[in-house]
């Protein structure tokens, strides 16, 4: 709908422009000779409007047939030039025919004298206007092409987001999976009830993470449910070594976040923090809403003896880079993520727009 209405508007503007050119041509004819204004206008306006269609359509097909960049610019220019000259001459012939036709009734407000100069002017103007029409078409074609490219880019971005989340889901740390299964294997003989609880936690975790869709944001509260399943499983593995503290404001829990944006941070906190500490430690997850911004923080202790050196702790940056990328995809520059080591711990802080309904962005 929008396409056709904007097309119609374009056509109207096009015709008005040609109408003005016609009036201008009539004025020039009237002023440059003794021709009365009425005669000049009666000659100039109709032939201009006809030429508007003829040159417009002809240029349109020509521009389609010779898109920019398809051939050498010189050959396109030559083709255009030749066509413009032919059209200019045809236009002059049309002018003569129309002039003859208007003179038939013998009214004194019709008919002009087509001098040599006027003929040259008409042909020259015809060539110029043809060139102008062609240029307009090229601009329009380029514009449409750019718009389509943008559309395609947007679509592929969406698809990439979807693919990325799918990858995240399937790339749930294999260590996590196999170690959890190993814990279940141990529990089946020692504490069958605990084994069943762990199986159910695993099932809930996978069911929820597999059900998430990339473009559909979830509330922080829902994300926290997923995180709690994850931590419950890890707590079976690590026992007393893994402790968790939550400091979550209700206003923050109601905010929407991209799915699985916090879970990787908590997973990192276990993998690169608790995992390396014989005595374990406490992971802190905090979220608060400050005006239009949502702040989320994940902290974990780290092994002070373990330098953040290459070799050890590789991959720390990959998960974080992925989160940063997804934040940028969802909120552009409005979201930020910072991380750093200090005070015997590692902390990540995310700031993003606080949204409570989908589509505010």
């Amino acid at each position: 709908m929008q396409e056709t209405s904007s097309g119609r508007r374009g056509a109207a503007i096009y015709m008005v422009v040609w109408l003005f050119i016609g009036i201008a041509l009539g004025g020039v004819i009237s002023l440059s000779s003794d021709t009365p204004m009425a005669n000049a206008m009666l000659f100039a306006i109709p032939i201009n409007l006809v030429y508007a269609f003829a040159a417009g359509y002809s240029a349109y097909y020509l521009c389609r047939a010779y898109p920019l960049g398809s051939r050498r610019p010189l050959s396109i220019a030559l083709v255009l030039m030749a066509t413009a000259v032919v059209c200019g001459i045809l236009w002059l012939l049309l002018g003569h025919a129309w002039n003859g036709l208007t003179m038939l009734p013998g009214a004194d407000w019709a008919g002009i004298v087509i001098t040599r100069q006027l003929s040259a002017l008409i042909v020259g103007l015809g060539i110029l206007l043809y060139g102008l029409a062609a240029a307009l078409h090229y601009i329009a074609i380029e514009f449409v092409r750019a718009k389509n490219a943008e559309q395609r880019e947007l679509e592929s971005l969406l698809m990439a987001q979807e693919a990325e989340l799918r990858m995240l889901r399937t790339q749930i740390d294999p260590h996590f999976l196999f170690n959890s299964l190993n814990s279940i294997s141990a529990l089946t003989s020692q504490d069958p009830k605990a084994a069943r609880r762990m199986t159910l936690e695993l099932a809930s975790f996978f069911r929820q993470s597999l059900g998430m869709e990339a473009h559909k944001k979830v509330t922080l509260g829902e994300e926290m449910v997923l995180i709690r399943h994850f931590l419950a499983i890890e707590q079976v593995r690590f026992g007393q070594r893994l402790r968790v503290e939550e400091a979550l404001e209700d206003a923050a829990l109601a905010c929407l976040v991209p799915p699985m944006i916090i879970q990787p941070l908590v997973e990192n906190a276990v993998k690169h923090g608790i995992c390396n500490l014989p005595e374990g430690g406490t992971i802190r997850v905090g979220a608060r809403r400050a005006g239009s911004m949502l702040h989320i923080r994940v902290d974990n202790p780290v092994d002070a003896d373990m330098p953040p050196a290459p070799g050890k702790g590789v991959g720390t940056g990959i998960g974080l880079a992925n989160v940063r990328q997804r934040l940028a995809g969802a909120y552009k520059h409005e979201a930020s993520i910072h991380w750093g080591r200090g005070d015997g711990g590692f902390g990540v802080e995310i700031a993003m727009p606080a949204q409570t309904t989908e589509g505010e962005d």
Partner: protein
Amino acid sequence: MRIIIVDDEMLARAVVREYLSEHADAEIVAECANGFEAVKAITELSPDLVILDIQMPKLDGFEVAELAGAGPRYIFATAFDQYAIKAFEFHALNYLLKPFSQQRFDQALAHARANVGKGAPDTAVGNMVREAAARNKPLGRVLIRDGAKVHVIGSDKIDYVEAQDDYVQIRSEGKSYLKNQRLTELEGQLDGEQFLRIHRSYLVNIARIERIEQATRDSHVAILKDGARLPVSRSGYQKIRAALG
């Protein structure tokens, strides 16, 4: 057969303990939850077999095997470490993938039992440990075993390293440590941007150099921030010039 179980997860140790209860001759002499305990226990108790998890805090399984030496036989266990699995296959080492069954465990145990007491040290373990160290380079820290104790020295804390026959003496924060390694091998593992071989017998931490002095007409000494004076060879002097600009 005297056995030590090393795993940081209580439940993982429990599985091994349970599977071992099927074997009357297996005696569990220690259970360790981290690498330091493991090195200490292996050194002090000299078991026949160590069942060793790869991913552990402080020291991983490879580092434990490196520090504790090739005295005992090892069965490595990992949940998912593709590099380690490849290495186990390549060196025909005894390993278990978690979770494992009683049958699989029995096989690994039988294999280890066949080798226990054969005397010949397990060269495959040494090879793999060296390979793992090469993979982790540049080393962020150097591990030194001193009897049953393990010292972990951050490579930025090292002043210099001096070659002493088959050993290296590592100087750090006013203390000296001996490590059974050749200087050239250690040099290859440390960060070349950080350490410079200024002499056949000396590897120095560039950040610790205070100044270079002319000693005789064609020899120099490097004076470190703590006042130590190290000889600089001619090629070493050129390297220092290039590094310090």
